[in-house]
């Protein structure tokens, strides 16, 4: 009798607990997202690894693999990649190039961005507002903008395609080839592109840093230079390190820049080589590169975590920023402002001018005769490329529609899931499920875009999704989820739990608490969780370059196709993309007040 009673009670207890667990929406969200994210992040990785030991159709041509059937097991790819005579050209050389390029780019970004951040937050430099909004322009623009601008600007008849560039046409200056193609320009362009990133991170810390820390040192009679060296620098050091690692890893996985500027000098990096492998159908070797890139990403994050203690620890230095006494620069405040503004214009305004100019040339690089046909011709243009004027070219419209649809889908999905994950992780902080969901949502951030693209190429077949729009939307959503989930978690952690509890107590249902209470309060943060995936997606190339083709062509992949051959049309298309991205940014910024440089500007 007693035994029977406890048995029933035990069962009821389990049922009751399960019921109590799932009456909390946060628990449901966490469970679902852990299962789905687990599938879509771990499964592609596993397939990627498995595929490096399989024979693919195009690989049967290797004499070592002759006689083996497609799908059979082999270590040949690993051998060829790492140990064979070809390993130098295929792997070690691109690796060396990529590391060199990334280290240089990181230093350029930190020095340029860091100096500007310091000038804006700590000195009485002029035109602070203007500088801080123009400075981040290159970061909003697609990464290849500067690369193609660089080419347009420094190109001269002695090198590359042999056409004249802006500088040559106006002043007749011929720079050497090493300054237009190869390691140096790639590093400079990446450095300039990521400088705003350094500016935002370092500037954020400087701005949040309690001015008392420096004032205390002033009162103890430390000199300005000593304060910077002994107080300011050590405090921003974690931010410097984070910036270095993030710029480094972003540069390692950069594809567009080395693709555009590597070209004729035979400068290859991991990404460009990987794309060649996969285009040739040599998936085994391509996937091995992807794995190495992922490992690089993981190692960098591990270093970052180890060095800074916590993923976000560079934001922990906070305090009341009181009245800061700015360093007086005398006449230099005008000079410094002028120099920085000139640099900003070079990086963000001049590119647009050269794209416009180049798109109007009858003969590429020759400014003497101009035409509008590459924009408005209703028939194929006279350059014989079989492409009509940009506004009448069906490919452009397909790509434009696809890009918008893709960005919209990804933003909607990533943004919404990000908010939900942010909400649940903040609610159930510290539990196993919350940690799992948080980490799984962050995992795609560590995977270089192209490697993630490769991983989804690998699962496309087994899931029957190859070459579908859905696959693009899926990979985009997953890739940009980290942005959205980060901003979601931050927004929720800022919001005291009591705000929701106050509604919970008066019986407000969960969806209504989200829609009527939580979302309106943190609107701008949440909207930036939608905005970031959207604009990133609009300008993303490396993530989609392996997956988009035919009917799923998007603006960026179309540009990549055109770039090598049809200069004028490519420049016109380039301008169209940049203007679209800027316009979207501007509209959202105006509508919601959410912006990337928020909180740094003077």
């Amino acid at each position, binding site marked *: 009798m007693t035994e029977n009673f406890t048995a029933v009670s035990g069962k009821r207890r389990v049922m009751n607990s399960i019921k109590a667990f799932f009456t909390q929406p946060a628990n449901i969200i966490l469970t679902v997202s852990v299962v789905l994210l687990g599938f879509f992040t771990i499964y592609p990785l596993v397939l990627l690894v498995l595929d490096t030991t399989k024979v693919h159709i195009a690989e049967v041509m290797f004499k070592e693999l002759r006689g083996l059937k497609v799908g059979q097991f082999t270590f040949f790819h690993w051998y060829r990649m790492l140990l064979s005579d070809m390993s130098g050209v295929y792997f070690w050389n691109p690796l060396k190039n990529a590391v060199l390029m990334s280290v240089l780019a990181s230093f350029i970004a930190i020095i340029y961005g860091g100096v500007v951040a310091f000038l804006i937050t700590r000195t009485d430099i002029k035109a602070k507002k203007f500088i801080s909004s123009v400075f981040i322009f290159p970061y909003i623009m697609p990464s290849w903008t500067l690369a193609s601008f660089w080419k347009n600007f420094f190109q001269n008849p002695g090198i590359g395609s042999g056409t004249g560039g802006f500088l040559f046409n106006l002043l007749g200056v011929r720079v050497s080839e090493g300054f237009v193609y190869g390691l140096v320009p790639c590093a400079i362009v990446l450095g300039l592109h990521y400088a705003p990133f350094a500016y935002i991170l370092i500037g954020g810390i400087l701005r949040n840093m309690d001015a008392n820390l420096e004032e205390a040192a002033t009162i103890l009679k430390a000199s300005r230079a000593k304060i910077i060296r002994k107080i300011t620098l050590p405090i921003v050091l974690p931010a410097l390190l984070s910036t270095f690692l993030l710029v480094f890893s972003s540069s390692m996985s950069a594809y567009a820049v080395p693709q555009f500027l590597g070209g004729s000098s035979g400068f290859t990096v991991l990404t460009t080589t990987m794309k060649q492998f996969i285009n040739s159908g040599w998936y085994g070797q391509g996937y091995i590169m992807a794995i190495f890139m992922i490992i690089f990403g993981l190692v960098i994050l591990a270093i970052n975590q180890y060095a800074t203690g916590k993923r976000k620890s560079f934001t922990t230095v906070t305090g009341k920023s009181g009245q800061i006494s700015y360093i007086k620069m005398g006449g230099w405040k005008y000079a410094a402002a002028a120099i920085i503004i000139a640099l900003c214009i070079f990086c963000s305004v001049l590119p647009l001018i050269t794209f416009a100019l180049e798109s109007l040339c009858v003969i590429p690089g020759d400014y003497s005769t101009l035409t509008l046909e590459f924009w408005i011709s209703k028939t194929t243009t006279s350059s014989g490329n079989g492409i009509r004027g940009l506004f009448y070219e069906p490919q452009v419209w397909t790509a434009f529609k696809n890009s918008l649809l893709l960005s919209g889908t990804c933003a909607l999905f990533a943004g919404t899931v990000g908010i939900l994950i942010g909400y649940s992780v903040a609610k159930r902080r510290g539990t196993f499920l919350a940690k799992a969901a948080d980490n799984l949502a962050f995992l795609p951030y560590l995977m270089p875009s192209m490697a993630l693209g490769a991983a989804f190429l690998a699962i496309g077949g087994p899931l029957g999704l190859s070459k579908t729009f859905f696959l693009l939307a899926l990979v985009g959503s997953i890739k940009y989820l980290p942005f959205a989930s980060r901003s979601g978690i931050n927004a929720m952690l800022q919001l005291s739990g009591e705000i929701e509890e106050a*509604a919970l*107590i*008066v*019986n407000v249902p969960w969806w209504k608490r989200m829609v009527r209470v939580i979302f309106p*309060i943190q609107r701008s943060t949440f909207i930036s969780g939608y905005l970031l995936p959207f604009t990133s997606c609009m300008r993303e190339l490396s993530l989609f370059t392996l997956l988009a083709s035919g009917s799923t062509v998007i603006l960026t992949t179309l540009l990549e196709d055109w770039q090598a051959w049809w200069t004028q049309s490519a420049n016109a298309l380039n301008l169209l993309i940049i203007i679209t991205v800027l316009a979207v940014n501007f509209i959202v910024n105006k509508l919601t007040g959410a912006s990337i440089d928020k909180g740094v500007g003077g």
Partner: protein
Amino acid sequence: MPEIRLEHVTKRFDKFVAVEDLNMVIEDRDFVTLLGPSGCGKTTTLRMIAGLESPTEGRITIGDQVVFDAAEGINISPAKRDIGFLFQNYALWPHMTVYQNIAFGLENLKWKKDSIRTRVDEMLKMLKIEQFEKRYPSELSGGQQQRVAIARTLAPRPKVLFMDEPLSNLDAKLRLEMRTELKRLHADTDSTFVYVTHDQLEAMTLATKVCLMQTGVLQQYDPPLTVYNNPANRFVADFVGNPTMNFVKAVAGKASDKSAIISMFGKLFRFDSQSSLDLADGENDVIIGIRPEFIRLGNGTIDGKVYATLPSGMETMVKLSVGNETLTSVAFGSVDYPFNMPIDFEIIGNGIVMFDGKTEKNLSLGSVSPQ
């Protein structure tokens, strides 16, 4: 009518025990304050009763409904517990006006439009915030926000009202004012109040019963004056009362069933207990607890020196040094003694507490007279 019953309630965060084996009954229409230093588990207790936090073990009953039972896995959502909750930082929704803040809850309880209007107006009037109806929380001062929060909490007529340090964000003057109003509100609304605070004065002045906690363990659950006059242990005696009680180390020997001879300040005294004294034979280490008001300066047998005098108008606190001990005494009115002036005093009244030297538990209440 609701009576809140906590049985063996325990809350653990990983290995840290926030509340340990808590048993208490909150009667209908009580005004109970949960008192203790920060981190003692009082807020956790409140949130567990409200359903915002789940206990690890135990059972909570409100009225005749079991709202939580760890053994059975029952956990009723806070929305279904018919309670109100006043948060420490008010938790007003910043994007809603005062009116919307108060009305939002009623809308969700499916009240009719005109009765919402009536009720909100009633609340606005009661808390004297009619003129702020259309303002947003950020446009109000701290005290006004506080009133809005109270109005929002009271509007649905909860049977039980929970408050988590609701006055701690207000300035001293306003706090005093709101304290009076809360006490009045308790009488007017006819509901049960459970109130968390770390301010012993607030707890004493407001409550019908004080629940004093330390590191998750209940120390004493009694009416405020009982807690003050007959503290269960040294911690309670020390925590309640301002200036705090004097604790003097002493040695006690049993004289009869209800009396003992104690030695302190290098002198012998007689301790007459109100109840039978539980002392072992021979010498016992004890602590004698003397409230400052029971030390009367002048005409006494104990000699000391003035360490410092702290007059505050209505009363004066005098710090004395006697041997190695420093004692606090309170004298009515303004007096001022020079530093180091020799002074004598006596211990009066029958509210002197004897604590066990080791367990620090209250052994007995009695009076001290020179031997």
